[in-house]
């Protein structure tokens, strides 16, 4: 984290978002402690940092699971019934949108658009994309990932 602070050594308010972005990229998520440190570093009040961090969808205060599942809810994917895929995942993993399973193995998130509207429906698990899946295929993929973690 020190290296990131050094990169944004200037106490300019416009450095706040890139700084938080880079910290999240390396740490995976933000914590209260990080916010305090950033506040001290940039000389910006803590409440303002929370204001910014909770405004944007990108910032999260929860750890991701080992497998992070992103379901696209863009218009094109919605028309390909992305909600039924979402329900299937919620049912299989007992996890809600935006949260992590108890064993910290899976996390689920809906995203506005991944830019792959021509290939919809798009689901991403870590760095692997899946498209044109059936609900049953998705179930198989998740079950196989579940076995892997056991």
């Amino acid at each position: 984290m020190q290296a990131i602070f050094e990169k944004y050594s200037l106490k300019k308010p416009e450095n706040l978002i890139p700084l938080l972005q880079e910290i999240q990229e390396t740490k995976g998520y933000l914590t209260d402690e990080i916010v305090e440190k950033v506040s001290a570093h940039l000389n910006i009040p803590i409440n303002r940092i929370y204001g910014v961090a909770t405004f944007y969808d990108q910032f999260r205060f929860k750890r991701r699971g080992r497998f992070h599942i992103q379901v696209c809810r863009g218009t094109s994917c919605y028309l390909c019934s992305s909600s039924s895929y979402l329900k299937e995942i919620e049912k299989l993993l007992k996890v809600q949108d935006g949260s992590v399973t108890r064993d910290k193995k899976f996390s689920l998130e809906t995203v506005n658009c991944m830019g792959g509207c021509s290939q919809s429906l798009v689901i991403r698990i870590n760095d692997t994309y899946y498209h044109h899946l059936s609900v049953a295929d998705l179930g198989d993929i998740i079950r196989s990932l579940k076995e892997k973690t056991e």
Partner: protein
Amino acid sequence: MPAQEITDNKAFLTEKVIKNYSGIFDKASLAKIAGIRRDTVDKPVIFIATGTCGIISGAKATLEKVRKFISENNIDASIIEVGCNGFCSAEPLLDVQLPGKTRLAFHHVTEDKAEDVLNSALHHTVQPDLVLGQYRQQGLEEWPNVPLIDDLPWFSRQTRHILKNAGIVSPASIEEYIVRGGYKSLYKTVLNYPADKICEIIEQSELKGRAGGGFLTGKKWKIALDTAGDQKYMICNADESDPGAFMDRAIIESDPHRVIEGLAISAYAIGASQAIIYVRSDYENPLNILEQAIKQAKEYGLLGGDIFGSGFSLSVSLRKGAGAFVCGEETALVTSLEGQRGLPRSKPPYPAEKGLWGHPTVINNVETLANIPGILENGPGWFKSMGTRSSKGTKLFSIAGKAVSTGFIEVPMGISFSSIIYDIAGGVRDGKALKAIQLGGPSGVCIPPAELDTPLDFEALSGIGAKLGLGGLIILDEKTCMVNLARYFIDFLQKESCGKCIPCREGTRKMLDILNGITKRPKEESAHETLERFKGVVQLENLAHVISDTSLCGLGQNAPNPVLSSLKWFREEFEEHIFDRRCSAGVCHDLRTFCIDVDHCNGCNICQKRCPENAIIGSLKMPHFIIESKCTGCGICFDVCKFSAIYFK
């Protein structure tokens, strides 16, 4: 490539190619250019489209397979990663160019098919089921019985200027862009024209902003140029937060230098020495490509200090958007760049007068900037010769949803919806009927089949109450419920409303409540609830007008569009939902009531076992029956029935 060759190439391209706009070259230079352009190749070249759409379809796995195949079989061939050519539904795309022969394109080359495709192509045969077509290249031997790519319906009706390099050049190579005429316009601009002349040329071309507003780009530049200020900023808006639109991503992934050249010219025109490209953080691939392209342009002296010795300096930085739909609005984008929550400001003053840190700032989107090099190369008259009276030039559209072919296209302004849907995209998938076309993102409108002949330009669209937006077209088939879709858009906009002004924050919330009341079945239908629902319905239209009249920024002003347009053209569907409590498309689960067709039910008992509400009764081998009051419309019985005995009404 050896270091010496890179330095030689660089000197050759900057000194001889960019600066020579007579276009006359000596023989040795021509051969060198042809080599970089790959007009002729001395060994097989394999091109793989690894844009985001390609990656989603599995292009990276195909790429690995091709690499492995080549090294295992000791084949002397080079592999080039290119962007998508626009025909996304045919991804993963793989092209092969053999010495002396035209470039051949294959579609749907997934990992398992890569080996077969290469094997046959390298042995000079083609697999007819996977071949897409061959490129038109003069002086090269054509493949027999293979159609030309230009003749395919997807491509034949397009006019590709912004996309002319898409899928052909490597986005990682500045050399390829330069030998195809790149950066000549920038050279011409900074050496020959004063800034106000450039503004004038762009104003003459009547280029209008491609992000939906439709304001004259040249005029916007002129305002920024004429506003006094020691520091000015040029911003490229690559936030593209409309779900369903992806052409900005496509331009960046296919031809990033065109955007950078456009950005540099516009910065010169407004007198800015700093430019920022604001990209969505979800767009990982475009971000990497842009980063590399900026680095290359700096190395070539096309960005940085004292460009071409003209005294014009420009530093370009990349900023990642943190994911907020409202930041597509220019004033919200500016506040976001200042490190605050992305709240819009009231206009005027417009950013061109008072933008980032109070300095004059011009914000143009990717497509607008990609148009600039072409206008300066060919003149404003050329640009004006395309399009219609109110809208000049070409426009990119992305086609998604239930069309047979999906992807992005470039067509002259003024083309009709029907031409795009039926002639280019091949109609609606699975032979279904077209219900509507959704245009312009979540705050856009749904256009009914009756308006299909409307030309796509600013004037004609505003005539039917629609807006062009970014140009995302989503094809809706008969299985779409317009009320549910309107509810989805309002749900999206309500979540993305920044909360600054009350009409948008509270109004969208109220609209969502009303639409939820229409599309969902309450647990118990008391008289009070019914009354509330009807009161809401009566006020829906009124509320929509209040929100659009009183909101601060474009998000709120346009938020009621999906509801208003659906009420205008699909009113009977709303009435069906409200009065009959029925959704004929079967999308609103709560409003479905399932029935069993006694003639088809053989009493297999599966539905009875799977029903979570115990709403199905009947004994084995006897037709079953659904108790309507218990049924929640979940549709599990409908899905599990193997005899199609269950239907909904």
